[in-house]
């Protein structure tokens, strides 16, 4: 899709199948699922919140309960961590400081080497995510910059212009102001590729190559890459919630959980 954007497509969307086999098959996940992904040019992650609200208002069937409808509740990751874990992320940017805070919070020390990202995720998953308000869909904005991704940096360099949407406690969508700096994009893929090599995957798992030319899409002087924001939304999960189903099986024709 970024190739199309580089080519001047303007606003685009697609609905396509995605495959993720490293997640628990259960009420909210099937390894093959449908993703709705859209990019809006001359827009940032904040604009995408409004677009997503419009989309929800448009597609929600009559009688959809209020906790699944816009307006969304918008909270920064910084504030949620302050409220539910009592920690100030601005002051915990080194692994050492985060470790000290984590042990004060009763988070078990990992007995294998751990990155800042992993420890942050464990704090978030243990203390914050189970507590987030569910009276409205919740947009968690400004994810830590130490969680590497292709989102642009926020004004505060500790964070990225990124949000995730939760409804009924279920993770539904992920959005960035897209990074357009070619050097940072190249660096991201190099780091990803190196990280893949060290992750404890199955012995025969393929390690994806760096897409060597990808960053060039962002440095073509003849066609400057547009400022844009992209959102990816798990369509099956949305249908499940809007349709009032308890499990994702309700909206998938041949769920894998039926065959195992």
């Amino acid at each position, binding site marked *: 899709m970024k190739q199309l954007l580089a080519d001047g497509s303007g606003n685009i969307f697609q609905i396509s199948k995605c495959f993720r086999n*490293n*997640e*628990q098959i*259960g009420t909210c996940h099937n390894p093959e699922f449908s993703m709705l992904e859209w990019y809006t040019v001359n827009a940032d992650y904040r604009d995408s919140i409004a677009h997503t609200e419009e989309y929800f208002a448009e597609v929600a069937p009559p009688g959809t309960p209020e906790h699944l409808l816009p307006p969304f509740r918008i909270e920064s990751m910084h504030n949620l961590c302050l409220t539910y874990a009592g920690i100030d992320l601005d002051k915990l940017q080194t692994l050492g400081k985060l470790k000290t805070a984590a042990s004060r919070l009763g988070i*078990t020390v990992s007995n294998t080497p751990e990155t800042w990202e992993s420890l942050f995720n*464990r704090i*978030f*998953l*243990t203390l914050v995510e189970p507590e987030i308000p569910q009276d409205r869909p919740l947009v968690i904005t400004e*994810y830590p910059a130490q969680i590497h991704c292709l989102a642009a940096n926020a004004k505060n360099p500790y964070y990225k212009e990124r949000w995730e949407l939760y409804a009924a406690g279920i993770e539904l969508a992920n959005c960035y102001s897209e990074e357009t700096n070619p050097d940072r994009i190249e660096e991201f893929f190099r780091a990803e590729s190196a990280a893949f090599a060290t992750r404890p995957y199955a012995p025969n798992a393929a390690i994806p190559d760096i897409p060597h030319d990808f960053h060039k899409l962002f440095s073509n002087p003849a066609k400057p890459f547009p400022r844009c924001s992209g959102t990816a939304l798990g369509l099956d999960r949305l249908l499940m919630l809007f349709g009032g189903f308890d499990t994702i099986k309700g909206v998938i024709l041949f769920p894998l959980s039926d065959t195992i």
Partner: protein
Amino acid sequence: MIKAGQIEKGMALLIKGAPFIVVEREFVNPGKGSAFVRAKLKSPSTGRVLRETMKTQDSVEDVTVDDRDSQYLYNDGENYHFMNTSTYDQFEIPMASFEDYQYLMKDGEIYRIIFWETTPLDIIIPYKVVYKVAEAQDAIKGDTVTGATKVVVTETGLKVKVPIFIKQGENILVNTETKEYIERVNK
């Protein structure tokens, strides 16, 4: 020692030296990152609930346990009293650790109790159990709505939503995990 990725519901783990039972376990992958195991653990001695999120490759100390058939005698409002059916030893399990079990266990019935050395860790209640209906209101005449339900109370005091045709004194099969009615049992 096992890897956190191998943790399963019902397992006993040693956390900071104290035994805990895994009551819930799920794998979570925030964003597209690596996988974590999020577990809810319960202390069988205090009922304290612990939430832990571990990396799947972290190691955790599992506990070697054995099970002993024991007869449920009664509860005194604070403890469940059991008797080991082979040694006739009596022992107690705090009710706070297994709050709703008083509505699931029948006096005099034999249950499997999981022990870690001399400490009882878990009471195993079969997934499906037949209970006698102790209290049920008669169906209201003319109430023919399909799928109409009412609430009955079993011999153990468990409240179960059942179809309206169930009468007092009848036996019903109940899912003890969800506490939902499965079917009427004729016997």
